[in-house]
């Protein structure tokens, strides 16, 4: 997915991040980008420019807590969900699934039209 994919991605980034953190517990930025890349077989690549603002925003909103650990001589910042964050993760994922369902029905041609064209 190229630039058009990014356009759709922007609104769902929070959901993706919350969902990944609810599965993995504790992750740092690069790990999140790699995890997204692996699971979509390279279809979706998160750039650091898109990821970090979202992470910090979620932290500011109280959904994430951070923890800095020194690894290989540099500071690595790990993110994990707060209880409120876990609730939001569940809620956002189900909302998004509903949205995908609605989109799918919207994109399918209505049955009457399909029969007319045939």
């Amino acid at each position, binding site marked *: 997915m190229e630039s058009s994919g990014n356009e759709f991605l922007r609104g769902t980034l929070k959901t993706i991040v919350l969902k990944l953190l609810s599965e993995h517990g504790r992750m740092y930025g*690069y790990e999140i980008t790699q995890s997204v890349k692996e699971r979509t077989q390279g279809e979706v690549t998160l750039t650091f*420019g898109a990821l*970090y*603002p979202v992470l910090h925003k979620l932290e500011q909103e109280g959904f994430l807590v951070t923890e*800095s650990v020194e*690894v290989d*001589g*540099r500071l690595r*910042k790990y993110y994990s969900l707060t209880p409120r964050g876990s609730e939001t993760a569940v809620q956002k994922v189900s909302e998004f699934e509903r949205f995908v369902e609605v989109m799918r029905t919207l994109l399918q041609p209505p049955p009457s039209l399909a029969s007319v064209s045939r």
Partner: protein
Amino acid sequence: MTKLTPQQLAKVQGHLLRNGSGDALLSELVDHLACEIEHYVWIGLPFESALDKVLMDANAIAVRHLSETYRCELTLSDEQLQQASLDDIVFEFRNKAYGAYDLRQAYRRNLGNALMMGLGMVLLLMSLMNGIGTKNWSYLSTTGLMWITGLLGVTLALGRWFHQHVQDKYRTAE
């Protein structure tokens, strides 16, 4: 997997600073880019080419775009501004974890404690010297009262300091 040396990390950090990365994101970006470089080195590129490739992707445009998105996303809302202290506003886009934010937050409290302790110690010293000078001691004299007040002051300051210390420890452990 080979790890980057401090000199190589300094190179990455220098590049980010030259391209205008804000300090709220700096240490995180250094780690991010270092991970990418290590990945390229691991799949066989020499360090210099890996560095060039990663730094080319993280060029001035990308870093500026990041800073702008960051500002848009994280500017305090009007509601938050109502409750924000001066420190919150000063540190809005800065690295709070670095330590200066905590120092500022604790400043008034520390100043109060230090003042109380200082005054208490002066009172103790004065009454002690008076006691030695006149060679008699009674808790009911002015000197005695000074001693008791001084002792109370120092104890209270120490108690508050200790209490705060324990609280801080508990908070970070949370």
